[in-house]
């Protein structure tokens, strides 16, 4: 038993078990459902890898995961939606002017900050600059925003995007997240661990607040749905494509041959509809797997490189690393940007598969804390652990609900059908999944503090 649970065997064992669980869902519930879980597992695994780069490699407690996920999501909208030319013509100019003014303000602020010595004159100068800038920018910004949001508000009311295939947003989402992470990192990475956590949590809420309220970016709470230009075929197209119909027919020829002609036509139609849904999901599975493996390979390579060794050395003993002339803050900024970029990529992928962008759906429990559970429970510092955590926790998150329902059914079996308590218990059962998640986290922290697939212990030097 001990040999079975040794470090080398843990990963294969855990992944085999995960595969069995997913197969069981496929057989027991349905294959499209299992595939839907798998696709989200893959995205979760990528997010978890991103957070692991920050926490596992460098010990940075980033609780702003939700913000970077949402940035990736916005990228998907900005890349794939067609540009709204009317909106550009009424408000584009004002927005461009505002943007230029923002850039000028920042440049001026930096110049003032650099060239004046600290003290009240500098503070006063900066205050005057910011207040002046606020009113000047608003002069151009507000009317433009109003104009843009009034362009066909029911369906548009935003600037639109570039009208490119959405798959480009996977890269752009990563870059956008990285850019914002650079700014955030620049200002917050000097803070102590739990302050960093609070600051990043707050900043991610600010990002969501902006996305909810600045309708000109991505329609705010009016949502953007029906995103197309996706990298995989549409179900309806498949159902009318001869090659697909032929493929399904030949795959199930044995079963179909047993039926009468009339039955065969309806059965085939049914199979084609089901098949198209499975096929589309499989396409996504394939694409996501490629992305996951690519990022995983890069992560493993990075972790074992001199850079990765240095990162771990800094994490384990910041003071010593500092004393040896390593620029800790700069290295932290690197990992913070890298990890956030990976999360951004996953955010764009998530919106791609959903086909819509809903700012209100970004909730810290689901998009920040759940990802943290994945890393901590999977095994922080170990890339395979993070991937496993992504799979396992997402699976739990989905399956905990039916499980709690089943559990409550069992508990309430003996009760009177009409009793209030029974109804309440059944109605509240879904909330148990949060309980299960919290309990899993606490149990892991207590009894397996290094996670299910722990970081390999190795000797390293700075």
């Amino acid at each position, binding site marked *: 038993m001990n040999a079975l649970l040794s470090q080398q065997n843990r990963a294969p064992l855990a992944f085999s078990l995960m595969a069995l669980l997913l197969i069981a869902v496929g057989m027991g519930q349905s294959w499209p459902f299992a595939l839907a879980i798998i696709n989200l597992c893959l995205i979760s695994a990528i997010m978890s890898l991103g957070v692991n780069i920050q926490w596992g490699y460098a*010990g940075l*407690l980033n609780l702003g995961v939700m913000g970077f996920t949402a940035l990736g999501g916005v990228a998907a909208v900005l890349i794939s939606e067609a540009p709204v030319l009317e909106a550009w013509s009424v408000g584009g100019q004002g927005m461009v002017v505002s943007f230029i003014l923002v850039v000028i303000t920042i440049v001026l602020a930096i110049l003032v900050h650099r060239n004046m010595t600290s003290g009240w004159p500098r503070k006063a100068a900066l205050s005057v600059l910011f207040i002046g800038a606020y009113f000047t920018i608003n002069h151009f910004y*507000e009317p433009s925003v109003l104009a843009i949001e009034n362009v066909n508000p029911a369906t548009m009311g935003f600037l639109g995007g570039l009208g490119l295939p959405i798959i480009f947003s996977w890269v752009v989402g990563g870059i956008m997240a990285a850019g914002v992470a650079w700014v955030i990192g620049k*200002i*917050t990475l000097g*803070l*102590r*661990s*739990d*302050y960093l*956590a*609070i*600051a990043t*949590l*707050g*900043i991610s*809420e*600010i990002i969501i*607040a*902006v996305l*909810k*309220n600045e309708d000109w970016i991505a329609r705010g709470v009016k949502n953007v749905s029906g995103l197309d230009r996706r990298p995989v075929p549409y179900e309806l197209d498949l159902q009318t494509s001869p090659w697909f119909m032929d493929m399904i027919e030949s795959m199930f020829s044995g079963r179909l041959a047993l039926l009468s002609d009339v039955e065969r036509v309806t059965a085939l139609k049914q199979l084609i509809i089901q098949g198209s849904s499975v096929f589309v999901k499989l396409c996504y599975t394939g694409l996501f797997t490629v992305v996951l493996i690519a990022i995983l390979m890069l992560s493993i390579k990075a972790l074992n490189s001199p850079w990765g060794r240095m990162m771990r050395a800094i994490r384990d003993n910041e003071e010593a690393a500092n004393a040896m002339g390593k620029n800790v803050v700069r290295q932290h900024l690197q990992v913070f940007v890298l990890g956030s970029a990976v999360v951004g990529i996953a955010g764009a992928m998530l919106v791609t598969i959903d086909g819509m962008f809903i700012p209100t759906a970004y909730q810290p*429990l689901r998009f920040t*804390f759940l990802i*943290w559970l994945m890393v*901590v429970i999977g095994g922080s510092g170990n890339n395979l652990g993070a991937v496993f955590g992504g799979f396992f926790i997402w699976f739990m998150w989905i399956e905990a609900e039916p499980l709690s329902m089943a559990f409550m059914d069992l508990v309430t079996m003996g009760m009177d059908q009409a009793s209030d308590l029974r109804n309440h218990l059944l*109605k*509240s059962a879904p*909330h*148990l*999944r*949060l*309980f*299960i*998640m*919290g*309990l899993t*986290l*606490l149990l892991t*922290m*207590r009894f397996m*503090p290094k996670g299910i697939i722990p970081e390999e212990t190795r000797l390293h030097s700075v």
Partner: protein
Amino acid sequence: MPEFVDILNAIVLFSNFVLVPAISYGAQLALGALGVTLVYSILRFSNFAHGDLMAFGTMSVILITWGFQSMGISFGPLPTALLALPFGILCAIGLSLMFDKTVYKFYRVKKSAPVIFVIVSTGVMFMTNAIVRFIIGPSDQRFMDGTKFIFRPREFKEFTGLSEGLALKSTQVLTLTVAIIAVAALFYFLQKTRTGKAMRAFSDNEDLALLSGINPDRVVLITWIIVAALATTAGTLYGLDKSFKPFTYFMLLLPMFAAAIVGGIGSPIGAVVGGFVIAFSEVIVTYAYKKFFIYLMPESLEPSGLMQFLSTDYKFAVSFIILVVVLLMRPTGIFKGQSI
């Protein structure tokens, strides 16, 4: 020059929409932030489960209030929830001590890093959140009874003859009264009693406190009792004033952290001041001053826009912005809290 009446009207308008709401919200945040700051200075971690502890305490108060109401017990013009408050506090104390014994104590004995505490506190956050949603459900609950208003805008207008009305809800007065009592009691306890001083000593220098014979287990126990009492009181006042919804209470975590940090984390006075700073900033920055200036400005200078710095939707974001700015500019806060 505006007429005297216009100035009065402007002041009443400002009081009605900014001053009075911000004071009561500030008092609620201050009580919440006191809890955050006490956990931070004595147990030495940022407690991410504090918002949910508040939700749990408030939920207990609501359930007991309903119980009292069904038994026909009421508190006259005051809300029945006030009668239920002590029992709700007991429930919150029970939950806190249970989590301390089963979760935090282990890491305290091991002297784990603060980050580990933060992570386990998120585990506690998940569980508490689930318990609350499981018992009372995720939706809005109102449990305010008794007299709603001390005076209504119409009554105020009739009384003063001004064209602007001023409302004073009984919950607002209640909030301030209870908050003042609670804060005064806490400060008396910390400054004047032996146990309170021992808690400050423990927070100041744990090793020396041990050398002086102060019992750490007792300090921790009393801290949780106070924190649970403060959280339940804050949550109940907030719920009476507005309404109770588990998600809102979870989200209150950030303004409370902001208040504690702005004031100087670890400093009780700082937490109180920070609570008001955050509350006032939120309300002031998102209030539309158009009408206010119409009263004060000559007609030719009347503002055309809403005269609002940020749209009301950004209300929550304001506290985060202040939090981030303070963390960057003066991480020790207004009242020099524990250094980073």
